[in-house]
């Protein structure tokens, strides 16, 4: 670290492990945030950048909005899916365009041919109860949610539910399990989120980072 940075000027940024991790680190690199790759790539959960201006937390994606809403992290990078599901009260100034995929209703081909609107209630297995409920009730279709925390694509195969709501990137996982998209719900990509108070109180540092990220997107 060249010169010490005052602790109140350090921005803490919550990052999502897993699906978004590599693309996030790469994006930060493009925005000129120099990470010690050995640190970022390792299993360390808290690390700094070279300038000492940023502190990063590697978190489970669903926890990112929580840390940001409470101001423990000033900023965060989280998928739109996670944000919709959490309904967190945070600012969302930037679509980072990474981790693009869609949220969709899916099921086996035989199910896909049936119009679910004619059922008395649709049964859906999903990690996203809020998004799912919202999608179906908005159309006036009652929905029965079966909440799962992972491997949702197994549910139709094992007979838990005929349909699922999940993220679809390439469609490979669906196809491998004999499923296909029945209807898309929304497009999903990673967003930059900012704590409401940090956005105001650390305005300069926050705006600078937003600008650097925005510039790197346009490049």
């Amino acid at each position, binding site marked *: 670290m060249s010169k010490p940075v005052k602790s109140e000027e350090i921005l803490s940024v919550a990052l999502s492990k897993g699906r978004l991790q590599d693309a996030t680190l790469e994006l930060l690199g493009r925005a000129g945030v120099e990470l010690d790759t050995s640190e970022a790539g390792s299993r360390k959960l808290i690390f700094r950048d070279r300038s000492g201006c940023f502190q990063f937390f590697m978190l489970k994606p669903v926890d990112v909005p929580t840390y940001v*809403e*409470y101001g423990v992290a000033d900023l965060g990078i989280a998928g739109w899916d996670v944000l919709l599901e959490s309904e967190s009260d945070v600012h*969302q100034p930037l679509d980072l365009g990474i981790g693009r995929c869609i949220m969709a209703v899916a099921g086996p081909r035989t199910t896909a041919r049936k119009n679910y609107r004619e059922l008395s209630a649709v049964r859906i297995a999903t990690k996203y109860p809020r998004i799912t409920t919202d999608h179906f009730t908005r159309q006036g279709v009652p929905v029965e949610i079966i909440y799962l925390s992972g491997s949702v694509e197994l549910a139709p195969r094992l007979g838990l539910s005929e349909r699922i709501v999940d993220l679809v990137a390439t469609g490979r996982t669906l196809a491998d399990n004999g499923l296909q998209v029945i209807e898309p719900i929304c497009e999903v990509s990673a967003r930059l989120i900012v704590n*409401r108070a940090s956005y*105001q109180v650390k305005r300069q540092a926050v705006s600078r980072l937003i600008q650097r990220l925005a510039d790197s997107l346009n490049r």
Partner: protein
Amino acid sequence: MKTLTQVPLGTQVLFGPAVKRRRRVERLVFSIFSRWKYEEIIPPIFDYYDVFSKGMGAELEETLYRFVDREGNLLALRPEFTSLVAKTVATRLQDRPKPLRLCYCGDVLRYEAPRGGRQRESFQLGIENIGGERVACDAEVIQVAMEALQRVGIDRFQFNLGEMGFFAGLVERFGLSAQDLSRIRKLIDRKDPVGLQAEMERLQLSPRRREVLHALLHLTGNGETIDAARRLVSNEKSLSALDNLAGLYAELQRRKLAQHVTIDLSEVRGLDYYTGIIFKIYVPGLGFEVGSGGRYDNLLKNFGCDLPSVGFTFFLERLMALPLKLR
């Protein structure tokens, strides 16, 4: 069946040092209120539902604790104090010399998911300044809030100052439904350009209108922000809101308080009864605002007495979460 020992979500019990600390904070804040000649008022914990629902806005109305009494009247537990103070002044204190200075402290109840610094039962401390001259009273209320913070040892804080009339004037001629408007407001409040763009496309707003709303997201900074905003609009309501803001900012400069103030015209979230300036109070180290306030010139009209008013409230639990100096 719930057991007797279980506690309902969102309630709290204080004891031991926490009680001492809280009472101290209340006393210190109140010492500032009384130095400024604000007189305490103790309103009821419940009133007719309509007293609160008028002016709160649909989103907050959903959080009211409602109940029916034996005569079948719809009542509600107080979700805030301002409506109750306004009602009391309009019906019983309207002949007192103006401005009327009143302060209060006590519980408010809102039925909402306990999260992000919100409880269902929480504690507010605040003041209302009723029937006085606009700029002077706006500035006074802000000054009282700042002095109260300093009294409990908080020297670094930021007041985000907006004007409801600016946004209202901007969208007046868009001809949007209340629902569409509230969606736009929410997106601006979230500083979400992507969502805003999509929504504006859905509503088929003209390119010029889209440009203005986009610019609004970044209308924040010091006094120069007001000039930048002036170049953006031509409608009378928005311009008069900016004049008003400029007048207040100059007054705050005169009182040497402007260094704590950020002009933020993208500040559009607030209770529906706010008509003029609104502000939110931020303190470094806390992820939520510790207080908020604003001008509500039409609220007393609901109770049959037309008096312009301004006030603010502290959210005591949040204030208590800060490292305070209580001497």
